[in-house]
């Protein structure tokens, strides 16, 4: 490994490669920030261009786009409450309230620094522990992924402590929506009511654009406000946020990044679950969990550090075993193989220079993201100075374009409109759009993994029960799941008692 590190670093400072990193980052951030244009799409569109480059430069550029796009998703999550990529759903939980409180620039800087931090930690694991971790990731099969997704779903309970009933109903509606289309286990058609275009199911991204951004537009139009939020860009914001993050949030950043890396390694789970789980954990371990959801720095930091840490994690099984840990990693794998590079443990020796240049470039990209992102933040925050009418209009236009671009399908535009109204009226009666999005995202994964467990049960002496509870990892996840469900109940009860006591005292 050591003999490759120095040439790798030298490669990075070739002017062409350096330029590609910055161009990739800027392009990635913009793609990520536009709702509907996802990291996967951004990287996939650039793959043919890499065929004309040498493989090292091509990989560096794709890696930079990946990092930029995952970070970029936070910008729209914070400014217009629209997760630019599915990985930043959890960023809206606190990022949007921060924006409404007039702290948009703080929120943008938090997401920038946390993303860079998470990315560096993820790459650190990729560089030093790739081989060992790849073997560990393989132990996550059907049952483990099933419990992991349920664990992610249990976030609903934590998210809506005050109103768990409505939270659960919202989540259940989300899961129900996710069952439209082809049954993953039998291939039969469900809930399409004879409509041929519904056979593809309700895609996650248009549904999220509807729930989050279109419904926000409806809300904003009804609010009679002139601007989204007061935007006061204070010059000391970046320094203040940096100091805050590295004194008060050290542990949180570290924990979120490690969870992100681990979830990233799993072939079935990507950034969308990682950020939700870390948000959940951040809230659980906090002394004042009530702050979450009202615009606290910790919430944004947890979600954003995790989704960038996923990148390093997702590349681990991709490089060592040829098994991509995320959809974007799968596209990069395709590009690698088109260049005739065979993934496998040998990649670190046979194509060592390429592999290590790629890994080292990830470090540099994360560092470069700080200045690049800082400059872009300045522009992004200015958007808030535009009048609400224009912003509302552009959100609608972007939502339609973004939804259509996913699969070039007009039905996705209708999904945006329908779920926009669902989100708007649902919000009015206290339904939780976040929980519903969780259901839509996690529903298919839960179903798919449950299907695998049912299949596997035929070979197991104790049937489905045996399959589900056999592994050590499954047992740990079941325990964590129980804990996750019981804690908010317990908190709710004790708080209720405390309030009752107070009430009694007042009386």
């Amino acid at each position, binding site marked *: 490994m050591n003999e490759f590190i120095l040439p790798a670093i030298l490669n990075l400072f070739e002017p062409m490669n350096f330029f590609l990193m910055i161009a990739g980052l800027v392009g990635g951030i913009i793609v990520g920030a536009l709702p509907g244009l996802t990291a*996967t*799409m951004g*990287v*996939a*569109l650039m*793959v*043919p261009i890499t*065929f004309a480059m040498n493989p090292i430069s091509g990989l560096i550029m794709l890696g930079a786009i990946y990092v930029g796009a995952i970070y970029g998703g936070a910008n729209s999550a914070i400014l217009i409450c629209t997760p630019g990529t599915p990985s930043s759903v959890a960023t809206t939980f606190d990022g949007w309230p921060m924006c409404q409180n007039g702290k948009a620039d703080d929120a943008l800087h938090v997401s920038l620094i946390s993303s860079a931090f998470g990315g560096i930690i993820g790459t650190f694991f990729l560089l030093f522990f790739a081989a060992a971790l790849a073997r560990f990731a*393989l*132990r*996550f*099969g*059907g049952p483990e992924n099933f419990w992991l997704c349920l664990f992610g779903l249990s976030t609903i309970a934590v998210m809506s402590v005050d109103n768990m009933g409505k939270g659960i109903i919202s989540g259940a509606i989300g899961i129900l929506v996710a069952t439209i*289309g*082809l049954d*993953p*286990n*039998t*291939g*039969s*058609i469900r809930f399409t009511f004879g409509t*041929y*275009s519904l*056979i*593809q*199911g309700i*895609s996650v991204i248009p549904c999220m654009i509807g729930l989050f951004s279109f419904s926000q537009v409806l809300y904003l139009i009804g609010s009679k406000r002139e601007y989204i939020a007061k935007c006061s860009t204070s010059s000391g914001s970046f320094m203040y946020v940096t100091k805050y993050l590295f004194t008060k949030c050290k542990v949180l950043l570290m924990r979120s990044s490690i969870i992100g890396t681990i979830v990233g390694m799993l*072939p*079935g789970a990507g950034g969308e679950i990682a950020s939700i789980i870390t948000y959940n954990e951040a809230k659980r371990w906090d002394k004042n969990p009530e702050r979450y959801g009202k615009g606290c720095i910790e919430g944004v930091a947890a979600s954003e550090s995790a989704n960038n840490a996923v990148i390093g994690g997702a590349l681990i*099984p991709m490089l060592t*075993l*040829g*098994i*991509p840990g995320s959809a974007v990693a*799968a*596209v990069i*794998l*395709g*590009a690698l*193989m*088109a*260049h*005739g590079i*065979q*993934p*496998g*443990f*040998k990649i670190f020796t046979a194509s060592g220079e390429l592999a290590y240049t790629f890994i080292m470039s990830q470090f540099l990209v994360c560092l470069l993201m700080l200045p690049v992102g800082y400059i872009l933040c300045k522009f992004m925050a200015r958007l808030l100075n535009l009048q609400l009418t224009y912003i509302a209009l552009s959100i609608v236009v972007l939502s339609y374009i973004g939804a259509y671009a996913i*699969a*070039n*399908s007009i039905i996705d535009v209708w999904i945006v409109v329908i779920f926009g109204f669902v989100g708007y009226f649902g919000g009015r009666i206290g339904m939780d759009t976040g929980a519903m999005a969780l259901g839509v995202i996690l529903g298919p994964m839960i179903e*798919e993994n449950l*299907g*695998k467990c049912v*299949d*596997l049960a*035929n*070979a197991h002496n104790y049937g489905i029960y045996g399959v589900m509870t056999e592994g050590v990892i499954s047992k740990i996840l079941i325990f964590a799941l129980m804990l996750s469900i019981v804690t908010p109940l317990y908190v709710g009860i004790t708080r209720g008692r405390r309030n009752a006591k107070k009430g009694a005292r007042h009386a």
Partner: protein
Amino acid sequence: MVKFLSKVCIIVAVVTTFVGSALAEYPTKPINMVIAFSAGGSSDVQARIMQKYWNKYAPKPWVFIYKPGAGGIIGFTEIAKARKDGYTMGGLNVPHIILQNLAQNAQFNPSDSFDYIAQVVNDPQCIAVRKDSPFKTVQEFLDHAKVNPSKVKVGLVGPLSGHHLMYLDFKEKYPEHRLTHVFYKGATDQNAALLGGEIDIMFGNLNDVMRSIDEFRVLGIAAEEKNDFLPGTPTLKEQGVDMVSDIRRCFAVPKGLPAEDLATIRKIFKEICEDPEYLADMRKSGQPAEYMDGESFAKYIDAQQQASHDALQKANLLKK
């Protein structure tokens, strides 16, 4: 007067463009290329390689349109229902189109909806195990499965896929070898499951198996002949297992294209498929290239349609 003159000019211009385009050789404008899977996937990579050489032999480029969803059914329908002017073509996968028609109410019929241009890929199925598996040959796996009913777990991508068909074929030929099958969403999950030990053996495409070939041992290839990618691996037939199964990719236009245009397209595809540089690019990216002309391929489709119908009928999977 000026207004009138300009109107005349516009009319003349419009008319000449139309007449011009009618007289000129096909194609006179870019062609829509519908890909029924996501950008960056295996089907897309193959079409992109093809595009490089299309530009060499044809005057107008392709415009890629991605219509992913529901295992390709959305994009395939798009091709079937496109205008029959030769400016929309797309990639089809077999047996996907056949199974979707037989079992999933697809709005196209492989025999009537398409004019086939050429088959470009023949990706055979393999039986693969992990490197440290006790099975060294197909026979060892069969012997073990026979005395341990339902204990051997086989991974398939599916349901209603080429893998699934191969499994139905296996069940038909070896009814006393009971396996436990597990469906995976895609080849990535399937490869991961085999590596992680969740399944003991898998039926997988050569192209997918090659991604993790360092960790796998391929027991046999379900093809008529050995494959260049794995020259040392025997076919299933050579090991006494009479099974041939594969996934093929072809290009097609909606049925009813003018005969001379179809002939032009077929000729260009033939030239591409015989270009040595194209073949080298295909090999480099792990795509098992195999050319078959459009007419033969249409016959192949009809034969497959019948065979799949029988297999699904026996398994009670036909649409009701």
